[in-house]
């Protein structure tokens, strides 16, 4: 174990593992994971809503757990495994059960919050927090939908949870 720390230069050279692929980039320490994804790596499926941790549009997975990319520094997740909405479908394009359920249930209107909703729902089901409509509402509360598609979102999560447990 090394008890010393080294001060970083103004630009950091990072390697991020995103959807199973390594990406090298040089960025300032203050750059968030959200800005690194969208502005540097052209992974624009992850959306910027409030950019201050209040809306859930930027939800991605780090080591399999849902987090907010807008409050995560890119530098902090070097060495972690990051999954974005682009990494959810199968290699042959087969949609994830949650993506298919959102289509079937018409669980969106404008679609801006949808990538965040879907990433959150995948984790919600995996955590075991999709056991009832009340539980789905509580554990999906971090994803706001300004169109108000909530009843259909709950239906989609319920449907996908059932399919994934079958």
């Amino acid at each position, binding site marked *: 174990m090394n*008890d010393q*720390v080294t001060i*970083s230069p*103004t630009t950091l050279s990072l390697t991020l593992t995103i959807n199973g692929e390594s990406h090298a980039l040089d960025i300032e320490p203050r750059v968030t994971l959200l800005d690194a994804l969208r502005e540097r790596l052209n992974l624009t499926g992850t959306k910027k809503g409030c950019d201050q941790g209040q809306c859930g549009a930027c939800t991605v997975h780090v080591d399999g757990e849902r*987090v907010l990319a807008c409050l*995560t520094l890119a530098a902090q997740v070097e060495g972690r495994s990051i999954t974005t909405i682009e990494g959810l479908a199968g290699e042959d394009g087969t949609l994830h059960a949650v993506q298919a359920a959102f289509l079937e249930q018409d669980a969106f209107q404008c679609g801006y919050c949808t990538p965040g909703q879907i990433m959150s729902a995948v984790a*919600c089901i995996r955590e075991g*927090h999709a056991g009832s409509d009340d539980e789905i509402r509580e554990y999906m*509360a971090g994803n706001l939908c300004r169109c108000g598609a909530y009843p259909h979102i709950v239906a989609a999560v319920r449907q996908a949870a059932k399919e994934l447990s079958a």
Partner: protein
Amino acid sequence: MRDFSYLRADTIEAARNASALPGAMLLAGGTTLVDLAKCGVAEPSTVIDISHIDGLDAIDVTTERAMIGALAKMSHVADNAEVKSHFPAVSEALWQAASAQLRNMATIGGNLMQRTRCPYFRDPANFPACNKRSPGSGCSAIGGVTRGHAVLGTSEACIATYPGDLAIALVAFDAVVHLGERSLKVEDFFLAPGATAEREHDIRPGEVITAIEIPGSAAARRSTYIKVRDRQSYEFAAASAAVGLELEADGRTIRDIRVALGGVATKPWRARAVEDALKGKPLDEANIRKASELAVEGAVDHGANHYKIALAPRVVARAILKLGETA
């Protein structure tokens, strides 16, 4: 957000050494620090990332105590089966806080360092006066929009509400925060503003939170956290209460009771007057309602937050009555 340099500390010792650097701030989950850096409230020159330190996220629960590592995630502690059975109020306070995403990021140590949500504190561009940010500059909240502000523990310098949930349960059950060489009761770790609103925690340069320890008790095992807010989920408390109850063998006389309040005070607020009024008394609704009024002894409102003085005792009474029903 102003730029800063980034350090990754791999050990507690490295984190302690680095935290003594001028302008250095520790980064764990980032849910407070990155947010406040974006608001222009936090302007670290160096950010020390402690989230990769190994072995600091353990959750160890026995009947005597819970020992929770500083880097344990809020979500993991909330879902821990032994925390749920020995300290239900702690689990309930955690899962009712923030959102699932934020709970996966935020750590237990970082949670204690969470800053107030006072909108004046969070908006330096429009409200330069804030004694928390710039000592001596004044308080923009006093005379402003105060619906969310505190009614207990305020001063002429600051009326900002302590926003957290977990610490309310910790204070109710006499939890201790470990800082390396020093250990403090969580109740003493938080400071009321007085004339020094900028000091919110009794923590010194070079100190790092390593763990939180909660003593086990019958009252902690029979406990709950009730949170009343403007929307049902993903919202800060308008008023909340962590309550624990132990009855005598007769099943109706109160042997031990713990009461702490959130959403209404400048720090996690232990309501000992309520506890003292109920110890040794029968568990009946009239006693409980009368004693719960003592929760807001000494409260001072600033207009729009007056409702909290009526609300807090009702939240306390509801929590005690709920525990009484689970006999």
